[in-house]
């Protein structure tokens, strides 16, 4: 569909796929913020303890993101940490979006993330400091973590390709298997890896204790005191590479073809089973890579006894991918946006009667609206197709009322009759 209308005719602005995607995402974001604001307003109206103005204050704090920190120095610091925490989210978002492109739902990113964390930490902490250059240990740790993720991601791919088991169920199972395996490995090797020195026994030693940390190139100085290092740039580079792979190479084309129509891809001579396995393996590698980048920062505490809980950053890759319509470059921005809202939300409990869960709520509503993106795109197409423009009410079309739905169902009936006629 994307390639049909490009060359010969001039495409109207609102019918360009990229424009439509961006407009749809922006509408979703505004819808989410609006609902978040209404919830705050609602709470303020119905609670005696919360003054009316708190709602406005609350939404402003969420909107200002790191800006809510107050003075410029703190803002820079918060900004740095926001960029740093966005890094693993970009990677899990890329992981989920790549699988989506191949028609697979990678809900296994948390497990792949855990395996990546385990692999990188095991290598980074077990090679004695000084036996080889720190950058080499870093590279080895990074590669081991990523490789473990590749293996872990390949499992659902293998089950899907060989046994035709739904990838969602295998991903869910492998998530919990990973959580227990990781806990078990660290439990069995506590002496070597758990942070007894700082009596933080719930956590693995920081990799800096073995001299391993990601290069910062002064980024931590620029954003004074924050954890920021070059990992954010690595993540962006990977996103760009992924974009090139998906859109400019034969392999990427094959992956997407499998996503659009698996049988057609097979008919065209592509090895669709191999592509499914490779896609899941790469997706696993991407999620694990995010974990490696986070752990190898050097200053981070990894909670090792994780068998009862899966890392949120893995699941949050799903909204990051959905908000970006699975575009790798878009994932960078959507991940940054999600962290921006999160950061703003984290200042709510201190400043207002509300709490940090508001930002999660807003993100959830945004994703709910993101489901309507096809609806919005169709609407944009239809609007620009008709030369007589309808009243410009695009945002209102999002309102959860049956009215707009009926609006779109009815036009669909018209071609329906014609098609049925053809069939007979």
């Amino acid at each position: 569909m994307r390639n049909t209308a490009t060359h010969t005719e001039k495409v109207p602005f609102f019918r360009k796929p990229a424009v439509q995607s961006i407009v749809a995402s922006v509408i979703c974001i505004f819808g989410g913020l609006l609902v978040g604001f209404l919830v705050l307003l609602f709470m303020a109206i119905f609670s005696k303890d919360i003054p009316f103005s708190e709602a406005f204050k609350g939404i402003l704090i969420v909107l200002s993101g790191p800006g809510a920190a107050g003075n410029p120095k703190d803002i820079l610091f918060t900004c740095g940490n926001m960029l740093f925490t966005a890094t693993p989210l970009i990677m899990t978002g890329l992981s989920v979006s790549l699988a989506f492109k191949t028609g697979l739902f990678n809900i296994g990113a948390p497990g792949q993330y855990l395996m990546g964390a385990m692999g990188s930490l095991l290598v980074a902490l077990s090679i004695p400091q000084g036996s080889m250059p720190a950058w080499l240990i870093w590279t080895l740790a990074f590669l081991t973590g990523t490789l473990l993720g590749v293996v872990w991601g390949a499992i659902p791919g293998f089950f899907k390709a060989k046994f035709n088991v739904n990838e969602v169920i295998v991903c869910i199972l492998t998530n919990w298997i990973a959580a227990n395996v990781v806990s078990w490995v660290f439990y069995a090797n506590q002496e070597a890896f758990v942070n007894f020195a700082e009596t933080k026994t719930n956590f693995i030693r920081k990799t800096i204790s073995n001299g391993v940390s990601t290069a910062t190139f002064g980024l931590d100085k620029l954003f004074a005191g924050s954890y920021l290092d070059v990992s954010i740039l690595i993540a962006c580079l990977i996103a760009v590479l992924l974009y090139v792979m998906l859109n400019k190479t034969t392999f990427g084309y094959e992956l997407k073809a499998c996503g659009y129509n698996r049988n057609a891809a097979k008919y065209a001579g592509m090895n669709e089973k191999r592509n499914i396995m490779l896609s899941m393996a790469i997706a696993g590698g991407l999620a694990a890579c995010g974990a490696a980048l986070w752990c190898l920062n050097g200053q981070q505490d990894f909670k090792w006894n994780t068998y009862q809980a899966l890392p949120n950053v893995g699941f949050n890759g799903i909204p990051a991918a959905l908000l970006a319509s699975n575009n790798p470059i878009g994932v960078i921005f959507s991940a940054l946006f999600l962290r921006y809202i999160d950061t703003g939300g984290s200042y709510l409990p201190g400043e207002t009667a509300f709490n940090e869960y508001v930002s999660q709520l807003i993100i959830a509503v945004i994703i709910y609206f993101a489901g309507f993106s096809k609806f919005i795109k169709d609407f944009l197409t239809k609007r620009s197709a008709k030369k007589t423009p309808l009243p410009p009410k695009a945002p209102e079309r999002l309102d959860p009322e049956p009215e707009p739905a009926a609006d779109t169902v009815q036009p669909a009936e018209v071609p329906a009759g014609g098609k049925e006629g053809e069939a007979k």
Partner: protein
Amino acid sequence: MIFLLQKTLIFAIPLLIVALAGMYAERSGIINIALDGIMIFGAFAGAIAAFGLRQNPFFVDNNQLLFALCLLIAAVAGAAFSLLLSFSAINLKADQTIGGTALNLLAPAVTLFITKVLFNKDKLEMDTAVASDGSRRDFGYALLNGDMGSVGQVFFDKAYISTFIAIGLFILLSVWIYKTKTGLRMRSCGEHPQAAASVGINVVKMRYLGTTISGALAGFGGYAYVATVANGTAEGTVAGMGFLALAIMIFGNWKPVGIALGSLLFGFLKCLAVTYNKSLIQPLEAHEWMKTLLANNEGFKAFYEAIFKNMYFYNLIPFVTVLIVLAFTSKRSRAPKAEGIPYDKGAR
């Protein structure tokens, strides 16, 4: 053994009912990946209802009535919450996975937000409450306590009223979807909605019915889980139970009997993981031959200590077992044909 079976039932019941919830949605053609979120929301609604109603001494006296009432409220809340999914998936033809994911994100956010604003803490626990005679009482979920025959003990000693309601509902709804006209119509919408529509079945209505029943069951299962497994504490998570139920549903091949077997198997293995010390290690080590084996064989002892006395080993068993069984049984696995595809009247 009796102890083990009791525990198995407790773990299996939420899985059973929520997997049935998933089946209802998918048989009508909607992928309900939001089971986890609906469980969380239902659990929260049930817990907050219990909290509110227990201000009244009448309900503190009649524990079981209150429990049943809270289950009902949880079911209604779950059904209402699932309407969000139905609306986006059926009316707006949105991607069902996205809608479900959004609900999974929304449920913990909403419940934690409200819990924190109202109670200023992250979880809603069941405190003691004042009964009509002025004494403070626990919630007391368990129905009966006492000595009974071995079969009686499995089902009735320290049993929960939710167990019986769930089993009853499960049988009723399993029969309903296969033996009634509406059930057949609903299933046809999951296989070929256009064909169903051509004989006058209202696909939109049927799919709404399927997802709403699904939501009600998931909400019920959510509170049943919180009340029985998590001691009545609602904290914005059900430990991935909804996703596991989804796995059980696929494992059970979208059929009630398979779901029942799957959830019992999983519940049994899961309870083995929780009680392995009492149910396996202690009886095993009571044997003389085991003692001599451990005393005489250093290598075996090290292996035994590292693997068989390790919690993580037992935690892994249920997941690995399901995975292996899936690999062998997947050939005959068959999902409803039209699941996940928005209904388009004009499609052929």
